[in-house]
């Protein structure tokens, strides 16, 4: 991916200028001549048989934007678009089984490929079903264009059948949205929407089309210029600020880099690694920053925050300089702000000025693209000899050893014959050469995946970090598999999250999307159960989750199941799924009461981690299996 992007920019007419590689940066390119010629031929063929209508203008605009796949679900008012799909073979349409799946799939496609994902729904319920996926993309800055149909313009506001004010609903959760009532506006608005979605800090843009806009005759063509005076992201950091930051880095004794999603968006992993090595700074990352740096790099120190590594949080708390790159000091990262990194100066680099000073006060703010700022910083920062940091790095290494030893994983609980989720994550990492695209759902397994898989490649870890959307995993993995077909794609899901969007199993089978599902089945809502144990004094309620017979369910959808109930079965199950040509389910029956540790209780600070709870070994016996058909009488006796 990286090499290909470099090749891409090499063709850019930018002699002398430093290459801009971030996927969210505006790029001028040569149009794919073959595809254009083909589209022109098709258009000519159509013109002879029928009028060119708004739906045609929309399809042409999407093709012009490089769209190759659309995840959607038809309905009454969007049918004019489905009526012309056949004329546009360049646009592959995936029929999902629920619109939420369409939005998550577009999200997964965008994160894995770096291109804008597109989802589609009809008016009313179709549109509202997209909302969760749009909000997920908004909070995680994912470039997405969501298309919906609406009732004809004359019926707007009349409570017509399947009419809802969807623009009003998506307004606070999109980067921008449009209501299109005139077919002549379609090419301009689609061009603006894609530009806004991918430029600067990416985000979802929603376009609502009235039915008559899609059916009216139009000759409007794709625009050659865009006029958005209110949308001018700043890409280059202010030189004075870069200089200040370089000085602070040169003087720091205990610097720590906090790397976030912005590094992936800016495609700046190489620059991050280069700066870390030049100035000898350990790199820590947020949940969405997993993959920013190869985890086998000696300066890759670990995952931070609520369920981050203790040694990482300790390093942050004792730092004298935090270099925050494309991250936003989310509450899951800082805990209580008043006790956060009390001795540290903060350099904050972000392309969105509104992130600077939002959650923590910053000493040296730099507004700009992380990649551009890193390239400037690399030039400005003096090289640091590794021996200057010997004492610091020795201390960090010791903390790391301690922290890994006390985690359940480090203590080797799995060796006693119980299947723990962290062991599955570790084996999955090793058996996929740490190179698969892995999509997490939300919950305990999401944390274990981030902690134990061992990510080596940018854009290989997809996770709903901001909104924490259960049900994200499977549909997003569908999108990721189509966005990066050259990589093995795994959805790591819990038994709770999978049941929220399980209908997409059929989509993967019917559309032959090779997603491997790694199901962590503990028959609990594990994270809820953990909070009820730790925060609510063991007052368990609604965290038991009687499970279906997964193998029968998968079979009904046409998917094979490979089951693992003990550690020694894990490798075989993963291997069998990898060998299967097509989507497959790996069903891991894991420990039911395992906790994600350490954990920072909400409202506490990073120094207040709960780390072992006396559970450094798994409980002596596994709980009785509980299924939908099984015994529910022992509810409430899990502790």
């Amino acid at each position: 991916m990286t090499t290909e992007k470099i090749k891409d920019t090499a063709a850019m007419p930018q002699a002398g200028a430093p290459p801009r590689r971030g996927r969210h940066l505006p790029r001028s390119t040569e149009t794919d001549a073959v595809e254009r010629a083909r589209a022109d031929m098709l258009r000519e063929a159509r013109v002879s048989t029928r009028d060119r209508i708004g739906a045609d203008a929309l399809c042409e605009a999407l093709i012009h934007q490089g769209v190759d796949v659309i995840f959607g679900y038809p309905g009454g008012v969007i049918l004019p678009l489905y009526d012309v799909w056949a004329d546009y073979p360049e646009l592959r349409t995936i029929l999902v089984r629920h619109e939420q799946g369409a939005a998550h799939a577009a999200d997964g496609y965008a994160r894995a490929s770096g291109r804008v994902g597109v989802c589609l729904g009809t008016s009313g319920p179709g549109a509202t079903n997209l909302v969760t996926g749009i909000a997920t993309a908004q909070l995680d800055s994912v470039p997405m264009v969501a298309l919906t149909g609406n009732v004809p313009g004359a019926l707007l506001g009349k409570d017509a059948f399947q009419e809802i004010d969807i623009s009003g609903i998506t307004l606070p959760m999109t980067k921008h949205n449009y209501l299109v009532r005139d077919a002549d506006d379609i090419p301009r608005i689609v061009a603006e929407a894609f530009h806004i979605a991918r430029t600067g800090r990416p985000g979802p843009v929603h376009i609502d089309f009235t039915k008559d806009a899609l059916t009216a005759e139009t000759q409007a063509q794709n625009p050659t210029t865009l006029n958005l005076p209110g949308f001018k992201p700043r890409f280059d950091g202010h030189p004075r600020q870069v200089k200040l930051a370089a000085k602070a880095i040169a003087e720091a004794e205990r610097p720590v880099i906090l790397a976030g999603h912005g590094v992936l968006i800016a495609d700046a992993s190489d620059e991050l690694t280069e700066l870390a090595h030049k100035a000898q700074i350990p790199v820590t990352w947020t949940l969405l920053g997993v993959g920013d740096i190869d985890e086998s790099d000696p300066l890759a120190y670990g995952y931070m925050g609520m369920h981050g590594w203790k040694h990482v949080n300790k390093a942050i708390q004792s730092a004298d300089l935090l270099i925050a790159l494309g991250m936003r000091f989310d509450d899951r990262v800082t805990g209580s702000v008043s006790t956060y990194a009390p001795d540290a100066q903060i350099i904050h680099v972000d392309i969105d000025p509104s992130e600077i000073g939002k959650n923590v006060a910053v000493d040296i703010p730099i507004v700009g693209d992380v990649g551009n700022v890193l390239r400037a910083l690399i030039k400005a920062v003096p090289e640091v000899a590794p021996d200057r940091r010997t004492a610091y790095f020795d201390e960090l290494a010791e903390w790391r050893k301690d922290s890994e030893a006390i985690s359940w994983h480090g203590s080797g609980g799995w060796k006693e014959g119980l299947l723990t989720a962290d062991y599955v994550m570790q084996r999955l990492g090793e058996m996929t050469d740490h190179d698969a695209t892995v999509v997490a759902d939300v919950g305990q397994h999401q944390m274990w995946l981030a902690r134990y898989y061992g990510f080596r490649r940018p854009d290989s870890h997809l996770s709903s970090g901001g909104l924490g959307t259960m049900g994200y995993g499977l549909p997003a993995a569908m999108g990721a598999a189509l966005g990066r077909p050259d990589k093995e794609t795994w959805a790591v899901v819990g038994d709770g999250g999978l049941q929220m969007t399980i209908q997409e199993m059929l989509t993967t089978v019917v559309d032959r999307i090779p997603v491997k599902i790694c199901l962590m089945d503990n028959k609990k809502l594990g994270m809820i159960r953990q909070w009820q144990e730790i925060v609510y004094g063991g007052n368990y309620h609604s965290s038991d989750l009687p499970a279906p017979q997964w193998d029968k369910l998968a079979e009904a959808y046409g998917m094979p199941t490979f089951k693992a109930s003990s550690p020694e079965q894990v490798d075989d199950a993963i291997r069998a799924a990898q060998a299967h040509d097509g989507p497959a389910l790996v069903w891991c029956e894991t420990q039911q009461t395992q906790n994600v540790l350490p954990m920072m209780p909400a409202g506490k600070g990073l120094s207040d981690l709960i780390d072992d709870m006396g559970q450094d070994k798994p409980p002596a016996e596994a709980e009785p299996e509980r299924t939908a058909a099984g015994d529910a009488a022992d509810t409430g006796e899990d502790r």
Partner: protein
Amino acid sequence: MAMNDPISAPAKHAAKARYVPGSGQTHRHVLVVLVNNQPGVLNRVSSMVRSRNFNIESLAVGHTERPDISRMTVTLRGDDFAVEQMGKQLYRLVDVLKVQDLPESGVVEHELALIKVRATESKRSEILRIIELYKGRVLDVGPETVIIEHSGTEQEIDSLVALLGGFGIKEMVRTGTIALGRGSGAIDLDAILRAGPEPAVVPARQTSTE
């Protein structure tokens, strides 16, 4: 359940607390927001302000010397940090062209109020005297009421309203503050609009192989 071995920060920093943005002293701010004059823009701005947990005291909207650009004047309370943050959040809106937090001095501020006061014959002359004092105008005189127009700063109108309150205010409307900076300095709309247009470029269709 016990919190084992909390990571202890070095002792010398134990008492130091990091400032939490927005927790400082609040005072009144007047924000000028220039926006594209398009349907729904007011909704976007007010939705943003609401969702970011700010409370607007007044909001006045009208178009500028250019009919395609509207000017909103927002008064609200918050600490400097928080108001700056709100300005940045507003800039995220594609239709917002310019946000300016007006300084406390060097600004002309005005609002307009229409006040319908109970004015029986015995009280009418007293009311008219107050209005004269305040340089207000009488727009309508009825047997029981008068309608008074008054423009001035928020405080001037507040004090007139307080005085008239004793006679009984039957109905009242205020436009909310509008403001302009004094002197020759001005927001240059043309410069803002000159920033666009830009070429509508699209990224190359990338192949998905390394």
